[in-house]
């Protein structure tokens, strides 16, 4: 049995793989075998290191040495000089991007290559979410204790304001300002509400925080309660999140048991109780006024502002509403200070943002990056690039309220302002990556298809206007659109944005406007050439079997559900496009890549 004293980790991320990392690993193995070191040193391929622009990457453990831009013929040098000779290969060492120096030992705290900073997610995946002791062991409730013993409510608001924290639910309203407004309002009863009605399709940041670190949200709500003078907190959570609900219930009861919630918390005289309120499947309830009506046991229809919820909210009492991620930032801001927090991020937007990275990217996942990170860094370094080595086409942020950005936006440092300027928005943090197989007209249609039934139906532009937008897009994807439709599409979008009652309606045309701006040619192709370059619009594509490649194995014709494919065994087959329903079955069944869409 081998007992290894060294490990060679070869990055197996797709960027590195395309840089021939498999060959590198093989070379290591054969070289080590040749030198009879196979039982001392283990070679293994790993997941992506997030250094995709410097791949292929190799790491030697336990020395913590990272080599970049490694080529297969560098292997021998590494083995001979480093493994055998104990001297690091200078010219392949990772370069500290700030100092420009080559780094020999890449153990913490040398983390220059790490694009992510976990603040809101600091405890996610680290602590046991069902045990409050683990949270306390990680400084849990210290921030609340500090506030109650050392700060006046005004000072708490000052710290939050000075940190530059802004609402992570979408619009980025300054959190300190919001708290101050609720604190100013005079009333016998005030409320602290946590918006956990995460509804953007493709977003799961809030769920992850609640499932991974529920206590940080409870602690932040109590801090908010202390700051604004509220003794009651309510968490409005989607009923579709049973695990998050379960963990919140456990956290609340444990916190109550330890006297960290409830009456006279830590003998300070401050009382704070938290209850859960369940959503019932309505996206619009993410809007603060709709959320409040839903909590009051009504249809979740938004009402006009002002009055703002901070003045008249739940039961017409001053109510501070923030989302999960916003609250999750608060305790650590209190313990580490406003200055620490505001040193992270850009001039306009402080701190980090959690994104749910999804779609056609290799490393789909939950990430947290400082404001100002570029989309390129997120997609290529954290996300490990586009899946199956396809070509990047667009990135959608902000869900149904956001827009699609393209190649030319990849180097914008993202924050609230820059994304809005680019025609999208931060939103709650959904980020969906699309490759060339995504049709942008269809994507716009997909979002409208979502918005139309999710509109509360109250105001005219949203209720009817979005329906009309959807119908026009549907017409275009079916090949029946006209250039006039494109004009109508834009005009109506502008009016809906201008006249809708709430944030949902005011942003629902964004996916259309951003794709019209960024992918105008694709719309025109659908209208004039009746062509969908992505092959996604079934009515606009034809399936074709390449006779030069088809071997006549009959796999396609046997599996075609509508018998549209004819042909003799071992002879090239043909597709009758008048019968074909473009289901794609034949493409997945063909082992020879003989069927293509045109």
């Amino acid at each position, binding site marked *: 049995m081998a007992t290894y004293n060294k490990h060679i980790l070869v990055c197996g991320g797709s960027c590195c793989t395309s840089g021939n990392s498999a060959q590198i690993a093989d070379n290591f193995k054969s070289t080590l075998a040749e030198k009879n070191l196979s039982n001392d040193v283990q070679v293994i391929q790993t997941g992506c290191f997030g250094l995709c622009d410097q791949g292929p990457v190799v790491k030697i453990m336990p020395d913590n040495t990272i080599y970049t831009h490694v080529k297969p013929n560098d292997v021998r040098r590494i083995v001979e000089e480093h493994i055998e000779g104990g001297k690091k290969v200078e010219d392949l060492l990772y370069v500290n991007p700030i100092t420009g120096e080559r780094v020999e030992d890449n153990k913490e705290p040398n983390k220059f290559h790490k694009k992510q900073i976990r603040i809101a997610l600091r405890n996610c995946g680290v602590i046991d979410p069902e045990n409050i002791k683990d949270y306390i062991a990680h400084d849990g409730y210290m921030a609340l204790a500090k506030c109650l013993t050392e700060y006046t409510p005004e000072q708490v608001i000052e710290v939050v304001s000075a940190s530059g924290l802004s609402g992570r639910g979408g619009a980025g309203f300054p959190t300190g300002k919001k708290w101050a407004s609720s604190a100013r309002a005079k009333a016998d009863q005030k409320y602290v509400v946590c918006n956990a009605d995460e509804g953007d*399709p*493709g*977003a799961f940041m809030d769920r992850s925080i609640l499932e991974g670190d529920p206590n940080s949200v409870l602690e932040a709500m109590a801090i908010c309660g202390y700051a604004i003078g509220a003794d009651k907190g309510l968490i409005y959570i989607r009923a*579709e999140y049973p695990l998050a609900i379960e963990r919140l219930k456990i956290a609340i009861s444990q916190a109550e048991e330890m006297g960290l919630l409830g009456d006279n918390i830590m003998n300070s005289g401050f009382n704070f109780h938290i209850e859960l309120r369940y959503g*019932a499947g309505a996206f619009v309830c993410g809007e603060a006024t709709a959320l409040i009506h839903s909590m009051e046991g009504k249809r979740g229809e938004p009402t006009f502002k002002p009055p703002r919820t901070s003045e008249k909210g739940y039961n017409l009492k001053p109510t501070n509403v923030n989302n999960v991620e916003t609250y999750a930032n608060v305790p650590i801001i209190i313990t580490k200070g406003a200055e620490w927090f505001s040193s992270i991020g850009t001039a306009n937007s402080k701190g980090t943002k959690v994104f749910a990275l999804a779609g056609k990217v290799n490393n789909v996942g939950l990430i947290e990056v400082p404001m100002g990170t570029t989309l390129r860094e997120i997609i290529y370094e954290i996300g490990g690039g586009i899946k199956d080595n396809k070509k990047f086409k667009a990135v959608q942020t902000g869900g149904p309220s956001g827009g699609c950005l393209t190649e030319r936006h990849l180097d914008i440092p993202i924050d609230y302002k820059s994304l809005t300027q680019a025609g999208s928005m931060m939103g709650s943090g959904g980020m*969906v990556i699309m490759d060339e197989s995504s049709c942008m007209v269809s994507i716009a249609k997909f979002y409208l298809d979502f918005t139309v039934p999710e509109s509360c139906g109250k105001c005219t532009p949203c209720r009817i206007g979005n329906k009309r937008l959807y119908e026009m897009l549907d017409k275009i994807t079916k090949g029946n659109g006209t250039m006039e439709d494109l004009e109508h599409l834009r005009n109506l979008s502008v009016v809906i944005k201008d006249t809708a009652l709430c944030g949902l309606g005011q942003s629902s045309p964004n996916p259309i406007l951003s794709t019209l701006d960024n992918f105008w040619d694709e719309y025109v192709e659908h209208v004039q050439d009746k062509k969908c370059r992505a092959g996604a619009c079934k009515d606009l594509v034809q399936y074709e079997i390449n006779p030069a490649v088809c071997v006549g194995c009959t796999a396609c014709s046997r599996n075609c559900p509508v018998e549209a494919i004819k042909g003799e065994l071992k002879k090239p087959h043909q597709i009758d496009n008048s019968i074909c329903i473009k289901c794609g079955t034949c493409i997945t069944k063909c082992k020879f890549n003989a069927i293509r869409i045109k």
Partner: protein
Amino acid sequence: MSHIEINAEKLNIIKDICAQYDNRPSDVIHILHGVQGALGYLPMEVQEAIAKQLGIPVSRVYGIVTFYSFFTMEPKGEHPISICLGTACHVRGADQILEEFKRVLGIGVGQTTPDGKFSIDCLRCVGACGLAPVAMIGEKVYGRLTPNMVTGIIEEYN
């Protein structure tokens, strides 16, 4: 129209759930969750019983039930299937998964199989985008689906 009678057992369940919330109209959404959880769905006589308990017009209850997609007035299958049509699932081919479920079970969205075993619905996002495309059967999440996995999954329940 005369009242549709609701049996005493069901009525007691409804009364108990309403009582847990002190018959507060502001908790009607929680109560509807509770009752749907216990009875499976919210037909009109159930909504009426709830309205009576809370002392509110049944129109208000009905307005709420029809607003929130979580509530249903139709009985669901024994194993309700929900296909996620969120963005991540969409770009990873959720529509093909949905088509396959429909084809295998021979029912459409919002319908229940004649034997009452399965029903198909779409939902907006389970929040398990990393596993896209995703479907739920009951509370169990199935991820990284491909159309050819569908038959096998359904067989688990037969």
